[in-house]
């Protein structure tokens, strides 16, 4: 039963996250944390941070990792099938009808329409992680410092995210333990 739920949860999140992997992140969070309660928000955040710091597509890393945590290798396979199979099969079957899709205005409208909502969902998640950090062991000063520094290094100086994540882990091990 849990395997079917894993398949279904990741299938829904990835199909509704129209426009590639990143838009499906908040939908995956909603299924995994709020709906099925497989993980806490904190655990999901850790999976997201590591997934973001490592290469290759984000949706398969989240699906495979969460599926594995919930139900071992069969869980990982079920979640990966839900993530990959429907769109991969559609891709192979539909290519002969390509001309129908190529210039369809619906594609642009749907991609455009979903963006503000994904932005709001991501913003709400960001708020939750900052709030948890402030009321958690990090406290307000460490949170401001870590957030400021990681923004500066990741987005302004363009240091690799993997390096920023490892530095913050090191910072936590030294100053927050």
């Amino acid at each position, binding site marked *: 039963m849990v395997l079917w739920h894993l398949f279904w949860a990741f299938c829904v999140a990835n*199909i*509704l*996250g*129209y426009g590639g*992997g990143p*838009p499906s992140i908040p*939908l995956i969070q*909603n299924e995994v944390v709020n709906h099925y309660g497989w993980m806490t928000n904190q655990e999901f*955040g*850790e999976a997201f*941070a590591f*997934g*973001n710091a490592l*290469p*290759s*597509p*984000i*949706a*398969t*890393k989240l699906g*495979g*990792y969460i599926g594995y945590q919930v139900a071992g290798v069969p869980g990982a396979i079920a979640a990966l099938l839900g*993530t*990959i199979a*429907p*769109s991969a099969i559609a891709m*192979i079957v539909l290519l002969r009808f390509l001309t129908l*899709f*190529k210039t369809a*205005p*619906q*594609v642009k409208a749907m*991609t*455009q329409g*979903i*963006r*503000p*909502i*994904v*932005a709001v*969902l*991501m913003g*709400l998640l960001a708020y939750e*992680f*900052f709030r948890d*950090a402030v009321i*958690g*062991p*990090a406290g307000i000063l460490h*949170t*401001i410092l*870590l957030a400021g520094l990681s*923004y500066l290094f*990741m987005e302004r100086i363009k240091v690799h995210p993997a390096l*920023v994540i490892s530095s*913050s*882990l090191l910072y936590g*091990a*030294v100053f*927050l333990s």
Partner: protein
Amino acid sequence: MSYGQLFNGFFRAGILGYGGGPSMLPLIHAEAVKKYRWIDDEEFSDIVALANALPGPIATKMAAYIGYKQKGFLGAFVTIFAVSIPVLVLMIGLLGFLFQFRHSPIVKGMVAGIQPVIGVMMAVLAYEFFSKAWKQVEKRGKTFVILLTVASSILLTVLSVSPAILIAVVLAGAFLFSTRKQRAERKVRSEASYETDQTSTERSG
């Protein structure tokens, strides 16, 4: 054309591609078009167009099509595996190792240290999605972007509407709206051409 090459090409694209599937397209292009010549430029842009139109992660859709074209279903399995599984195993190993020591104060400190960074990453993604929505519409559309943002904020927080349902409704709305608009434009165009036909017949007659 061997399974080994299919594996290598997508393995390289997978381990070199950061920031999710969409940023991997140039890497897949480098392997599939330039290096191995599995497909040409025109076919590549065709499958990108189709992959963009379909939901789901984009890198695995590209892998599925190219692998299937070369070697059938087994080829698609190899390319999808190569692009996603090696790094996934690495991630399960890394996090598994870390969380064996979940209750040690050092790992608790690490977990606390990473939290604000997760917040920053989410906030950056939120900003990127909003600015993409904002920049790609004209003046009239901007009001609509604000409307959608405010309405979805209220629906998601105050009224606790499920994000999946909200997104499904917006996708359906966008689809219907653009279909109606397309039909209306077609109708205007065909009426215009009908009128020019009429005038030309009148003139000739």
